């Protein structure tokens, strides 16, 4: 069954922190720095035995409108299209939720 809401599936395992999504959003929507629909956070996770793990988490902000104008035309949102790691997927929330089961280290985001 389809939900009537769309969102973004974020495969943060492969996010390299390249910020293409952030700038793609600025270009698409004309945001002036530092505004953008996408922020990318660097998280250095502490692990046992003094080890650490580096994660980048792309996080859609209050400004994200899921590129409504683009998706109406059947285009992917600008950040999704340009993501250098192809780690963002746009789609129907229920369908994306099914994808979550298939691969670890992902989060699902629904817009405001």
């Amino acid at each position: 069954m389809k939900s009537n809401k769309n969102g973004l599936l974020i495969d943060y395992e492969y996010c390299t922190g390249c910020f293409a999504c952030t700038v793609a959003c600025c270009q698409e929507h004309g945001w002036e720095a530092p505004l953008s629909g996408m922020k990318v956070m660097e998280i250095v996770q502490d692990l046992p035995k003094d080890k650490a793990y580096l994660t980048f988490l792309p996080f859609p902000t209050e400004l994200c409108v899921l590129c409504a104008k683009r998706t109406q035309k059947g285009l992917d949102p600008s950040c999704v299209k340009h993501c250098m790691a192809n780690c963002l997927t746009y789609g129907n929330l229920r369908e994306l939720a099914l994808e979550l089961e298939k691969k670890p280290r992902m989060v699902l985001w629904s817009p405001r």
Partner: protein
Amino acid sequence: MGKSKTNIVKTTTWSAGPGCHGGCGVLAHIKDNKLIKIEGDPDHPWNQGRLCARALAMTQYIDHHDRLKSPLKRVGKRGEDQFVEISWDEAFDIIEEKMKAIRDDFGPESMIFSMGTGRDIGPWICMLAYAYGSPNVMFALSGNACYSPRIAALDTVQGDYCVFDAAQWLPGRYDNPEYKVPECMIIWGYNISATCPDNLFGHWIIDLMKKGTKLITIDPRLSFFASRSKHWLQIRPGTDAALALGFLHVIIKEQLYDQNFLETFTDAPRLVRNDTGKLLRESDVLKNGSRDNFVVFDNQTNTIIIWNTHKQEYSNSRSTPSLTGLFEVELLNGKTITCATVWDKFKESCAEYTPEKVEKITLVLAKDIEKAARLYAKAKPASIHWGVPIDMTPEITPLCHAIASLWALTGNLDVPGGNVFTRSAFNAVAYALPGAEGVIKLKDQAQDKTRIGKDEYGPFNKFIWRCQTDKVIEQIFSEKPYPVKGLWMQTCNPLSGIGLDPKLWQKALEKLDFIVGVDLFMTPSLRYADIILPAATFLEKDGVRSWWVPLQTINKALTVDGCRPDVEINFELSKRFDPDFKWETIHDLFDEILKPSEMSFDQLSKKGWALPPENHASRPYFRHEKGLLRSDGMPGFATPSGKFELYSTLREKWGLEALPYFKEPPFTPISRPDLFKDYPLILGTGRRSPAFFHAEHRNIPWLRTLDPDPVVEIHPETARKNKISNGEWVIVENWMGKARFKAKVTKIVPPWMVMAAHGWWFPEKKDDPLFHTFESNINMLIPMNEQGKDGLGTPMKHLLCRIRKEVTGVKNNEI
């Protein structure tokens, strides 16, 4: 006024703009000669629709209010901000007059033609220099330490450069049935963050990871790759050759090498004289024997036989050359000497690098060295991708030799998914690069005699066609053997980015009689120019890109009033300097460069890009077996002896060590315990930022906001010891100088090292004509003139320093 249409122009990124080495296909949306949007071209095989932050910020770049839009003439002192606008005609006239005067009075070699990073600029600088008559084209980094040392090193031992295979040559890319996904990949000193290295697309590695490639990462920092690797080897910077020799030690000891490759394609059985340590040559043992031919011992007949280099065969085709043993050989002069095989000598070089010894040198645990070596050697196929830190050490060639031996001995050379030879697509070469002769060359080889560094350093006579940068700076001061009078400085900013010891560069710039600067924005270095010419971005020009694959054109999408593309600027002046200049228009020149592809600029431009056809020398695989690498069409490699050389004949000729080795770099805790006492931290520099390309992009708001300050990464423990908190300003200093950075307290770096960002100046701080370029410039701590014995490499990734909190209330220039 009627509504104007939006035009979509397909073109290729290369040069000013993203600043990178290019290759992305983009769609530029143009309306009324303005860029309104840029997107990745989904049909392009290189980026497949993706695009990086710097390319996506092009609208802010093109229309930037600070862009230079008129030629300028200096009216004040060097280093001040006194310039007046002049016309292009006047600028060209002044340049022509001044440079011709230098040529008449001191000779053309007295002008140096300098560039920054390798973009669509190298050919046009060479074109101008050669039309003027000077061989002195300079890449302004100490030790020429970016890419060409690695290329020259591989050309030396294997005849061609190679890169990891991500199916970039094949139609359909990863889906092409010829391709194999590597089981394992070593990421050696490379971090991703959207930097596309060495004419490759960095995120291809992510594609491969998703397809199952396991990683081994060699990096002192906890990088993206380090976190996602099967084995992360946290190496002490500068000890990479020891690690490579350690890998070889394990692979040889456990016999994980490819015996067939070793016997068929390497020089392993050649005899080395124990008295001189040099190769035994036919001329040593036979009357009228050739120096180019080598000697092996035949197991079957118990006699020596000859490897005929010219014919690429043994004198007895049924022989089985011995790979190991000690042999007595009688020389022509009657003397009897003992000889060992190259393979025995090579094994001896690796033998002392036991995992335990390598652990002591590199700080990588012995068991991890063993595990990584086994994973790499057993994986079929496997590849290695190395980053620019490999160039940034003085003993770069022996290091590359050791790493090249890894992919060769494990049978991963020119196989699908391995390390694959790479040449300019279709062999369309614009200008001389290591291993390739271009369309643009010196008119007369005699003019090359005066090239700086040529006589001193072997590789500069064989592979490197630039001058040796450290020697140029030295010669500016010494004026020996001839004075340097002028500098053509094109998209090159030594005071902020590419120049080590920037105060030395400043003095050098002050000493010169005439400087032309060509760039898109005012930079600290341009303040020293007499004439400044405003250049164009990649969207404002036509061009060709033939660096590896695909073959592409750059297509002009718009113009910006007042600015001109580098190629057009240099073309106009080349005509003025050379009455016999060969080409009428730049498109004639492009057509000639593209000739080997049997396409004209217009034809290729319509296609957009092209891949070389099957069985072309610029397309993989197995070219050493098919005889596609050598000019004589024989199987083997394009080395002087036709084999992969475990013992380098060229290095022997140059009077250098012919086998790989490790030597401790000049400024480390081990080599300089005296300095280490006062400067107890290893200083790494140059970690990449996705927002910037070296010294560029600090003025682009969308990018600057991503990485607003010059940052030094400090481990929490080290920060605590030095009473430094996250976000505080600190001074990083050593015996050379100091610079201020914002502390980023993070476990990304180990406690014994700090990592300082490079390329910092402040285009927004207009109170200083030099935009505070010496304030947070990490190069203030890095010396020049520390290149390796072959003129290549520089120790810029492994220095020593100390850190302290900045005392507030003290002016920046008094820190």
